[in-house]
Every structure is written in structure tokens, then in C-alpha cells.
């Protein structure tokens, strides 16, 4: 296994599972399961035991490995120099399990959906652009940017709502961009994080070839997970594009005072998506947009930015739900964090977070108290147009 020369270096000291003030456990799977085996240190020791033949690839082992949300909180908080590789190590171990053919059924089904239909929803490819009906967004045709929507934005009801809002806002703001519609296929970020390296490579190569054929140089992503794949993994496969998240586009429009807003009186708290924040290092753009809207009072949750608590959807868990369920599931915990601020809107910048958290408000029975809104939606509700 890749990184097998590192796994023995974990001291299992546990710094990885905390926030940086040590007030809270910030590893979502440890926070839910509470066995040390579900913390990063536990995974490291078990991967080593498995490589050494001391334990087998059992259902429990799979649950332990695949419940990692790849949120990167351990990378942020581990005390050791190999910290940058922690998530990569867990992904590599998943790869080994995938190669051995013994993986949780939900993971297998996810791969099947992607390899057969090009999306995990098992929906026809021609429905992929359906979300755009009624909007003025065009199909990509030499525009400055490709607006890459991703599977969740294309097929999930909340994702589609977000995609519509963001595309409307950006188009209104005069950004030249087009979509791929039915030609779009999965970016592969979750495929990779779930350990299907081969499938990821073929998806990435397909996307890269298509982007190149269409002359695409710049990409705006709806989903931070796609942003991560395009920025971090595609270049190694020859896909060098200028990639940016839509909140970054909006933030620069705010900064250059190119857009203006009507008052939007609300108490808002913002949930950092792990893939926008910890993985891609963007904490400011979403906040600068919210802060620029008159009437919004932005209140931070205690666990924010580098210490943000994952909604539990990362690392493929959005689709496999291995980490979900019960009152300690990360999405429900996160909703409680948001409620504790007294905010009436929990703003997000990721369609996966939006879906996870909106479902959690329902399970918690607080959907009347706390609205989940993507920043794109908030902006679309108060944007008055371009400044002269």
C-alpha cells in the first residue's frame, strides 16, 4: 500500500481528533462512534494491523475506514510532520480494499452508478442539464468560463435549486459562462476519496479531454468537491485549468463593488465546507459576501474555519451514509451548533452540505427555526443588479 512506510509513525496521541483549543472533538466519525478505532489514530493503527495480517478486512474494518469524512480536520490538528498525508493514507487503505473487492455494498453501488450512468443517482445523462430549464444560462460555446455543476447540483433537488440560484446570479452579474448540460459527467472527487483510483482516472481523463476539445481554460465550480478534484488532482493527469469556486467569483465582484444588494435582514451563521475551507484554503470569500450584504448579521459558530465541524457528507458519505444516522450524526450536531448561535439562517457554499444540513434540520425538527440557504441563494434574493 502507498504510505505503508508511514502508518507505524502514528503515536495515537489524539491531537488529531480535537479543535485547536481542545474544547471539542472535531473528527466527525469519532464524534459519532466514540470508539478510538473511529478516530484517525485508530485508523492508522488498524491499517497497520491489517497490513501486518493481525486483523482481517471485516465489515467493522470497512465501516471504520469508510466512515472517514476526509474532512481534513485531522490534517489540521495532528502534531506530526506526516500530518499532510493522513487523509491520503485513509484513501489509500480504501483503495486496497476496493482492489480486494471487499467493500461495503453502499460503496459498491455508488461506483456502479458512476461507471454505468456517469452519476450516482442512476439518472439518465440527458437529464443532467434539466436544472437549467427556465434560466438564461447557455450551453458552453466558447464562453470565458465553464460553469461545472457536478452530480449533486445536477440531480439533487436542493443541489439543483442552488445551481439555478448561482447561475442566475453570475449571469446577471455579467459573467460569461456556459454549462455542459448532458455532456457533463462526474468530476470523480468522491470516487477518488472512496478509493476507486482507476475509475477516477478514467473520469478525470474523459473530462480533461472534453474540456480541452471544447477549448475550456477557466472553470467555475458550484461544488467545492469538484473544485478540489480539478485543482489538486487533474493537473497530475494533464488537466491544467484555471479553477475557481463560485463564491470566489462573487467575492471579487463584491470587492470591486461591481454588484450591489438590497437589505437582507437576517441573523446568519456560515458553515465552512471542508473541501472549500480546509482542502482548498478558502475561508474568506463566503464571509466577505455575507458581510457585504446590508442587514445580515454574521455570527460565527464556535467551530469555524480551520476548526469547522464537517457536516458528515465528505469522503463519499453523502452517498453511502455510513457515517449518518442517530442523534450524534455530524449533520445533526452541526445543526445544533448553528442553532446555538441564535441564527435563523445557516448559510453554506456547497450543495452537499446544503442537502445534509437541510435533512438534518428536519430530523431535528427545527426546519421552522433554521433555514439552510446556499450563499448563491441568499445573493439571488437580494442582488439588485450591477453597479454602474
Amino acid at each position, binding site marked *: 500500500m502507498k504510505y505503508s512506510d508511514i502508518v*507505524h*509513525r*502514528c*503515536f*495515537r*496521541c*489524539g*491531537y488529531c*481528533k*480535537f479543535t485547536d*483549543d*481542545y*474544547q*471539542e472533538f472535531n473528527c466527525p466519525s469519532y464524534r459519532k*462512534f*466514540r*470508539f*478510538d*478505532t473511529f478516530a484517525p489514530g*485508530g485508523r492508522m*493503527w*488498524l491499517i497497520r*494491523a491489517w497490513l501486518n495480517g*493481525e*486483523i*482481517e478486512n*471485516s465489515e*467493522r*474494518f470497512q465501516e*471504520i475506514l469508510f466512515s472517514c469524512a476526509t474532512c481534513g480536520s485531522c490534517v489540521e490538528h495532528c*502534531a*506530526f*510532520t*506526516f500530518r499532510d498525508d493522513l487523509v491520503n493514507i485513509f484513501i489509500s487503505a480504501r483503495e486496497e480494499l476496493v482492489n480486494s473487492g471487499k467493500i461495503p455494498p453502499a460503496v459498491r453501488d455508488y461506483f456502479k452508478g458512476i461507471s454505468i450512468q456517469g452519476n450516482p443517482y442512476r439518472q439518465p445523462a440527458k437529464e443532467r442539464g434539466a436544472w437549467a430549464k427556465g434560466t438564461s444560462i447557455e450551453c458552453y460555446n466558447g464562453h470565458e468560463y465553464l460553469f461545472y455543476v457536478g452530480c449533486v447540483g445536477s440531480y439533487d433537488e436542493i443541489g439543483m435549486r442552488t445551481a439555478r440560484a448561482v447561475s442566475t446570479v453570475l449571469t446577471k452579474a455579467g459573467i460569461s459562462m456556459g454549462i455542459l448540460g448532458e455532456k457533463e459527467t462526474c468530476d470523480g472527487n468522491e470516487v477518488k476519496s472512496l478509493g476507486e483510483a482507476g475509475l477516477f482516472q478514467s473520469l478525470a481523463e474523459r473530462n480533461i479531454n472534453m474540456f480541452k476539445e471544447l477549448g475550456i481554460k477557466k472553470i467555475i465550480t458550484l461544488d467545492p468537491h469538484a473544485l478540489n478534484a480539478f485543482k489538486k488532482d487533474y493537473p497530475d493527469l494533464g488537466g491544467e485549468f484555471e479553477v475557481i469556486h463560485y463564491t470566489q467569483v462573487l467575492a471579487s465582484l463584491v470587492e470591486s463593488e461591481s454588484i450591489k444588494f438590497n437589505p437582507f435582514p437576517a441573523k446568519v451563521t456560515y458553515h465552512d465546507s471542508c473541501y472549500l475551507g480546509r482542502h482548498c484554503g478558502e475561508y474568506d470569500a463566503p464571509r466577505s459576501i455575507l458581510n457585504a450584504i446590508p442587514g445580515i448579521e454574521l455570527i460565527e459558530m464556535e467551530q469555524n474555519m480551520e476548526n469547522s465541524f464537517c457536516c458528515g457528507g465528505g469522503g463519499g458519505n453523502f452517498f453511502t451514509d455510513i457515517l449518518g444516522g*442517530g442523534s450524534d450524526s455530524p449533520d445533526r450536531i452541526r445543526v445544533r451548533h448553528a442553532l446555538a448561535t441564535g441564527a435563523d439562517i445557516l448559510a453554506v457554499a456547497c450543495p452537499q452540505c446544503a442537502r445534509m444540513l437541510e435533512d438534518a434540520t428536519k430530523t431535528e425538527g427545527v426546519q421552522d427555526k433554521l433555514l439552510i440557504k446556499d450563499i448563491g441563494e441568499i445573493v439571488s434574493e437580494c442582488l439588485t443588479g450591477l453597479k454602474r
Partner: protein
Amino acid sequence: MSNIRERLADIVGERFVSDKAEDLYFYGRDPGLMPAVHPDWVVLPETVEEIQGIVKMAQMEGIPVVPMGAGMSLSGLVIPQKGGIVVDMKRMDRIVDINEKARYVIVEGGTSTGRLNAYLNKKYPRLRFSIPDSPAATTVAANVMIHGQGRLTQQYGFNSDMVSGLEVVLPSGELCRIGSCAISNEWFSKGAPLPDLSGLFLGWFGATGIITKAGIKLYPRKLLRDVEIFVTDSPDFIPEIIYEITHTEMTEDINIFSQPLPLIFKDNHHVVIYFTGDSEEEIEFRKKTVFHSLDLFIRNKDGGFMSVGAGMKKSLLEMPQRNASTFADVTKGGGFEYSGPIITIDKYPQCTRKLDELAHKYDLKYHGTARIIGRGHAMMFAFSFTFNRSDADMLDRTRKALHEASQYALSIGGVFWKPTIDEQKMALQKMDPEFARLLKMIKTNLDPQGIMNPGNWESK
């Protein structure tokens, strides 16, 4: 012994009990060098009643019960020597109550030192406790259980001396309060003016009961902290240096370290002196007093203060010090362990020479640390060796070096701190037989079946 799993699940809930190979593997070992022994079950209780239920059931069935905090004491104290149930305490992590004016806090038995520290920082910035340099995940109850030491140890003694009350589940499953809280709602004293029964539990490694709540004394937190390092190249001066510094009563904490790498530290002994104050003037006054106390050494060129760079200062002032853990990666191998006897400070030169000798003999990387306990009443001297977990030969050499260090410490009057099972045996053999008999009497009376963390403090 039938249906134990189901009965445990009835007590703590299905989600919080496991007999799965992965959990038994992990909870059967710690990061130190003691051999692994797998438990049969791991449970994660959340309430006192659940712990009582577990212990009562275990008592009925004669099953061993081993409480565990973060499992970071390194000397195998949470390894279930005879299998049975490992009770991971970390779901019991609430801060139950605080009495600001009487300066004590009551925490549950699995509350981490990191969490308590964060809580005080946020809510009571004028209060602090004696935080050890163990990882933030380590628990307050376990730390006092093993007579740990922390930042205030030089002023107030062992962290267990700072306990202000206990709630314990006895081996019978009954719940018992120890100290003032036994007759009052206040947790200000673990013993006096009553007979101090905390000694029936502290230092026993869970072999006489499970701490479900601990009262911990809090102390004034000054606005400012600073650190200076006095360096000498001769270990022989250290006892006198410490005598002089402790005489001033001006310091928060005093640690000494020596290590061969990086080279700037080689052959020197670094006395790390911590200061606190509510103003720059107060800190300056304290520093000046300490500087004066060391005048003679400076004039004789036997030592001097080194300049401490901002990076080093930051790391030294951190609580807990994260780089105490990263010593485990010096050989890129994820392990370190220390034999840490409590011993008088006049033995510092011998200990440090022995450490050097053992490191050479066994070809190991080392680090010597001493933490001053009280006004120089004793010190914890850590013979620390770092090892590569995947190098079997190095593991063996480290075990031998640690064993020799322990034997040596015992021979020069040291007393083992958080001893391994083997060290406990060595101690039991050497101690006053009447003391050993008393230990046995207490253990047999409290835990006649010997189910609580068996193997620990067990004499024949």
C-alpha cells in the same frame, strides 16, 4: 459468562459495546512497549449508573474490568492483563460544577485535560489547574490516579495532591464519595479534616474502583507567563541550582532537559524556569530575584542564561506542550517510552549519566527530562527513549534500556512512577513487607474477587 455482550448492551446501549476484533485489537495495547492482551469487550458508558451496572455485572460473573482514559500513560496500565471489559471513560466528559471563589472544579471521570483547560480559558480566565504535558486527550481523573505532575507541581506538589474530592464506583458497584463531599455539597478537600481515604484509590490504577467524578483544585491564573532557560554543562551543579531557585519561591514551574540532538543542546543541561505575573513589573521582579539567586554560578562561569528565541518560547509556553509528543517521531517510528522514577534532586547527576550510558549501550536516541516536585522535595526524572515501532530490534533494545534504567533508579533510592506490571513487581519485592501486606489487605477487602484492573499492585 453467557450473553455478556447483550447484558452490556442493555446497560450502555447497543452502539457503545463492542466485541469486534478491531476494537479488541486497539484497546488491547497502548503506545508503549508492554505486550498486548486483548480484552473481551469494550464499553463506552455515559453515566455513573451505567458504570455501576457494568461493575455489578462483572462482579457477579467474575469478569475483569479495566478503566481507561486516553490510554497514554505508556506503561501498559490500561492493558487488560486478564482480558475482560475495558471501560473507555471518555464519553463521561462533562464539567459538572465549579466553585469559583473556593477555586475547585468537579469533572466527570473521562474529561480530558484539554477540555478542562479550554473551559477555564473561556469561562474562568482567572483560574487554572495543573495541566500536564501529556496530550490534550489524556484525562484528568487518570492523571491524578497515576499521581501525575503538571505546570503547578513545583508550587503545589503532585497533581493528586490537588484533588479536592472523589466519587468512586467501588468494586462492589456501590458509589462512594471521598472527602468533604462525603458530608457536604462542597468539594473543597479530599481528606482533611476527615480521615483521608483518597489514598484507597489514588495511585491504584483503577484496581480499587473507578473514579466517576473528581474535584480538582484551581489556582490563580496570572495575566502573563514567560520562560527563561539557565544552562550549565555540568549536571553536578543542577541540585544546587534547583535549591537556589526553589528558595526564591518565585517560579511557576521548573523543568530540566538534556538531549544530544539537535547539536545546540548537546552536553548541556537546560533548566527551564517558568514565571507568571499580573504585570510586567511583577514578572521582572520574579526574574530578577531568580537571576540573583544564580549569580554565583554565572560569576564562576558554571552556567548562564541562554537567549530563548520566539519559536522556542512559544513552544515552551504552550499548554500542553505538543512537542512532548513529537519526540515519538525522532526515529520516524511513532514511539517513545520513559522510565520516570520519583527521586531526590541530588540524584540528578547520576541519573543523567546513567541515561547517557544506556543510550550508548543500546544505541538509542534519548531525552532526559526532570520536573521539580514541590520546593525541591523531589523530581520526576524521565529516562526517555524514542523508538521505531516497526524495528523489532530497536523495540527490544529500548525495553532493555528501560528495564535497566528502572533497576538503577530503584537501587539509588527512586520510587517508580506509573510503574509497568514488571516494575510493580520489583517495587513490591523491595518494599517494607508490612506496607505490601497493607496494600494486599486493602485490595482484598475492597475487591475480594480481584476483578478491578487485575495484575496491578497484586502481591502473592
